[in-house]
């Protein structure tokens, strides 16, 4: 759809021309609207358009491509680079502790079980799932139910006797004793502006010293995604992001906001409610989805 609109815009230009300043300005306006409608953060959009403008201005239009297609090619390249470029390759040591954090309802508990299953299937690692959400009604039961579904170990199996940090410490000890190569800590959802709960998370991280802190983000999150991720990153130094509910029809612009705006890499994507619905992140295909 964006390709069609750009085609109309450039239709007077034919092969072997150069993209003029006016051509590019108009085209950038179209891209801006497309990205904002896709929920990419406004600041990230502005920075992104600047870098695209530099690449596109004066660029030769090849004989084989129409100017509209050529321009979109430049945009897609820049977008993909931004999505891919963030951070190092994922390499969890053995053993490792992973801490899952994020806003309420983003998909942490479900993702915890998905990760346990993923690492069992792909690396033969056995996990211990640790329920540290002492707040939400039946949160522990939810994780226990999911753990049983995938035949993974889970703690605590009985109602909580300790607070979140105490339960986490207990879980890490049990995992070590049982030789579990992966400990996955599920935490309560919280607002990044909730001082008390963010401090609780900082203290949990300081005590656990996890090998990875991953933020679980709902694919349909709008403009707030950047400030949410930025605050979690500032407090905890995130090692990655997991985008959930990508099986919906949300364009997923929040992914570009976080990868582009913060440089935190996306590690996995959630594509459904079942334990098997988790895939490693791949940047190709996402550029097209975001651009619409």
């Amino acid at each position, binding site marked *: 759809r964006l390709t069609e609109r750009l085609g109309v815009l450039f239709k007077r230009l034919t092969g072997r021309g150069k993209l003029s300043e006016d051509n590019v300005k108009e085209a950038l306006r179209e891209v*801006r*609207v497309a990205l*904002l*409608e*896709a*929920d990419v953060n*406004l600041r990230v959009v502005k920075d992104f358009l600047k870098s695209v403008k530099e690449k596109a201005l004066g660029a030769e239009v090849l004989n084989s491509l129409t100017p509209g297609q050529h321009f979109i090619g430049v945009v897609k390249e820049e977008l993909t680079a931004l999505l891919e470029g963030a951070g190092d390759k994922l390499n969890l040591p053995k053993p490792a502790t992973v801490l899952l954090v994020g*806003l*309420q*309802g*983003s*998909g942490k508990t479900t993702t915890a079980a998905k990760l346990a299953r993923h690492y069992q299937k792909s690396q033969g690692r056995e996990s211990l799932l640790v329920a540290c959400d002492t*707040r*939400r*009604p*039946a*949160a522990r*039961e*939810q994780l*226990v*139910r*999911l753990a049983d*579904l995938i035949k993974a170990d889970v703690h605590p199996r009985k109602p909580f006797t300790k607070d979140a940090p105490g339960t986490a410490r207990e879980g890490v000890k049990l995992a070590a004793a049982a030789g579990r190569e992966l400990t996955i800590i599920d935490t309560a959802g919280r*607002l*990044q*502006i909730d001082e008390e709960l963010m401090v609780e998370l900082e203290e949990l991280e300081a005590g656990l010293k996890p090998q990875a802190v991953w933020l679980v983000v*709902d694919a*349909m*999150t*709008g*403009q*707030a*995604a950047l*400030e*949410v991720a930025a605050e979690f990153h500032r407090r905890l130094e995130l090692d990655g992001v997991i985008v959930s*509910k990508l*099986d*919906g*029809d*949300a*364009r997923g*612009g*929040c992914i570009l906001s976080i990868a582009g705006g913060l440089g935190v890499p996306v590690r996995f994507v959630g594509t459904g*409610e079942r334990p098997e619905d988790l895939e490693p992140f791949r940047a190709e295909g996402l550029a097209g989805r975001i651009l619409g």
Partner: protein
Amino acid sequence: GLISGPLDDETAEELTDALILADVGPGPAEELVEKLRERRLSAEKPGDPAVELARIIAARLPAQPPDYAGPAPEIHLLIGVNGSGKTTTAAKLAKRAREAGRRVLLAACDTFRAAAVEQLELWSRRVGVPLIRHAEGGDAAAVLFDALEAARSRDVDLVIADTAGRLHAKRRLMDELAKLGRVVGKALGHEHPFRSGLVLDAANGQNSLQQARAFLEIGLADEVILTKLDGSAKGGVVLAVGAQTGLPVTWIGTGEGPDDLEPFQPQRFAAALVG
């Protein structure tokens, strides 16, 4: 100038940016600021542009629906995508209704998700409203039917049914929800009305618009309940939802506790959007 005269470009851009950051959407944001510009040109003595913009926005929000005037029981289905806050909102609405002296029943129609029934069960005890539930993995329609029968026999005047989260893009799940809607007709006759509250997370972006359209398309959306407004997101997309579907926002969720529910106030909401 800021307080008088036509809208200068810098202020126009600031206001447009504020609206975009509030998830109003780029098209609607530009159109609203354009409307503000026109109004200020023809105004005798224009005031603060932000205040004026908030007024324009507030005037566009669909009006609240009238109070229920149908036969007992009033039925309220809570629907929406995964994690939006349906179960928690069901508990909040139940508590509020009970405290207002109504005879209320909760129905656990999420028979799918792990520990969904347990979650609502704990809430039902906490807010003092009885719950109709079946075993996990049961049939949601059977639970609702059961709840409506129980409501009739116990002279209950409000049934609040929690449903499973579902992505609106999943055809089969939407068909299941449509089927759930037809249960009301089976249990209480086809003239018996019911309301569906679409629960939208305030942190969602433009996808809320697709959600609203999709649930409306299966005839199951009468109002919007906007949750998690205690967060940093402003929920501006409900403006476009209202403009395109006519759906009014009735309640807002302002926290995780049972009392964290307030009636939607358009002026206050509009003022927050403009910052």
